[in-house]
């Protein structure tokens, strides 16, 4: 027998920081896999496997019932909410971004603090304000704007106001962050090169704030698509959005396959819009967070 000399080959991989981080990431990855990815996968699977395998649920959504209309309404409301949030948040963010010290901290506290009150409570508050004999209607009648109390609840207006109220911080925070990172020398350069205040805003300030606009828009739009409580409380009965539809199908009609299919379509629309937006705006949403 040949006695081979034993050679010890050290195969230990050199330590890298990346491996340390990979270990740290294991637990959250497992958590997400079990409690998020798996249930999501089951939703998608149920939509094509039940009640019988095939795309029956999807053809039903496409060609019958109120599904398509409700999905379109959802997109419309989300777009309006995003637009209104941007219009309100932009000037506020531009002012806040110029603040320093105590005033900046106060402003940030106000914005972040508004997140501490739950959306349910705030939506109920709007219900009370908007009801037939509520403060808003009283004011409208007293001011002579309306002859008699008008219906505000169950309209798109009520839903949009309620959602903007809750989602505004998600537009403000990325906007402020990106505006604070604008190099003041670029604005000075714009001025000395001949840009008057309006052209300076359009030609320099606004393009430089775009990362924040993109991040805020994506955050607010995607959050709006899945909003449930506020549209349910302020629009319930007459005005319906996708999340309400899913809840209704699952809890009232117990039609879990259809609920799953609607949820899958909503997920697909969200993903497609997110990717398309990233391509068009050529931005990585995470960039504004760096």
């Amino acid at each position, binding site marked *: 027998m040949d006695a081979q000399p034993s050679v010890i080959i050290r195969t230990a991989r050199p330590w890298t920081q990346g491996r340390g981080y990979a270990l740290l990431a294991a637990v959250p990855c497992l958590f997400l896999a079990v409690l998020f990815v798996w249930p999501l996968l089951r939703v998608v699977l149920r939509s094509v496997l039940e009640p019988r395998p095939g795309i029956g649920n999807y053809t039903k959504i496409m060609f019958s019932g109120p599904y398509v209309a409700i999905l379109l309404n959802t997109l419309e409301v989300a777009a309006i909410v995003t637009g209104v949030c941007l219009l309100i948040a932009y000037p506020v963010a531009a002012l806040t971004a110029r603040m320093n010290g105590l005033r900046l901290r106060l402003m940030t506290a106000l914005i972040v603090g508004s997140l501490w009150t739950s959306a349910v409570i705030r939506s109920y508050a709007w219900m009370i304000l908007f009801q037939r004999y509520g403060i808003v209607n009283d004011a409208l009648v007293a001011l002579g704007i309306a002859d008699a109390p008008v219906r505000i609840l169950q309209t798109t207006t009520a839903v949009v106001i309620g959602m903007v109220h809750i989602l505004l911080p998600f537009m403000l925070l990325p906007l402020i962050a990106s505006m604070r990172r604008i190099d003041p020398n670029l604005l000075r350069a714009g001025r*000395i*090169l*001949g840009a*008057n205040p309006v052209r300076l805003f359009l030609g320099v300030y606004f393009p430089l704030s775009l990362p924040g606009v993109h991040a805020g828009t994506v955050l607010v739009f995607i959050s709006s698509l899945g909003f449930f409580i506020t549209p349910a409380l302020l629009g319930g009965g007459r005005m319906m959005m996708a999340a309400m539809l899913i809840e209704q199908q699952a809890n009232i009609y117990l039609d879990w396959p259809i609920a799953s299919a609607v949820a899958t379509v909503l997920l697909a629309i969200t993903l497609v819009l997110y990717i398309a937006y990233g391509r068009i705006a050529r931005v990585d949403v995470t960039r504004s967070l760096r």
Partner: protein
Amino acid sequence: MTRGASLEFDRVSKTYGAVTALQPTSMTVRPGEFFALLGPSGSGKSTLLGTIAGFVAPSGGCVLVDGADITAMPPHRRNIGMVFQNYALFPYLTVAQNIAFPLKMRRLPKSEIAARVDRALEMVRLGGFGPRMPAQLSGGQQQRVALARAAVYDPPLLLMDEPLGALDKNLREEMQEELRQFHRNVGATILYVTHDQQEAASMADRIAIMNHGKAEQVGAPHEVYERPGNSFVARFLGEANMFRLRRGWPDGPGRLRCETEESLNLLACGATSAALACVRPEDIVIGPAPTGRENCFAGRVTDLVQVAGSVRYRVAVAPGCTLIVRASAERRAVVLAKDDAVHVGWDAADMRFLSE
């Protein structure tokens, strides 16, 4: 070629609350001149520049360009060019769009904008770089784009705020050459802010030395170097061996004999009541034998550093008095070493009197 504008500061000052950034400053920059504001950070040079651009509202006084008071004019109407230290190129625009920006603001026809942008790119030797993004360019190239952008609308006055500050040493020297060439080409008056005395001295026609919010001295680089008005100017512009004078008395026609704090006896030209005198390191002769100059001292080498083309010695000549001596390569026939006993000397005419 543009005709350079004249620039005049008339008692311009700036205070922030209790802090004085700029004391009332008056000076005149001639048309077509390359004028440098030289000083350490916080000396008020950038504040002064800001008052011309319109970014800093002076607390008092006024700024005149070609005799017209521009103090109240907003920056975009001043028609002044400016180059920033960090280039300040718009990152979302291409090189060509950056250069076109000031022309678009002036609503020039498209065809003329294109022609002018091309010419500006050629001038800074970046022909063909138009479609690139600024981030794809090196620091030196970006600075040249910034130059082209500042000059493309032919402003009669160009402000430069430490434009080479972010570049490494070799590139900086190359760019100095290029900036001088650029100045000859465009003919505009250039006001150049820097803290680098070598940079200011090699490029500017005249310099103003700034310190503590005021201009200490204004003049051509060699004038200011050879006849510094006070100790700050002498130290800031090159090196200087400084002597504090205790008393002085006439010694022959036009000669003054002085006694320094270290009890050295020095011979200088002229008569003065100044408290300080100085001699430049390169005016001192060093050797193993007595030098035969009017001021001659024996000493010991405590330290020496070889720098390109010369050697910089520290020579202790008296307790508490160490002189810096710079010997050029040709004078270094005899190589001196640390701890060598040496003689140093200089002429009375090389002594300069300074105020505090």
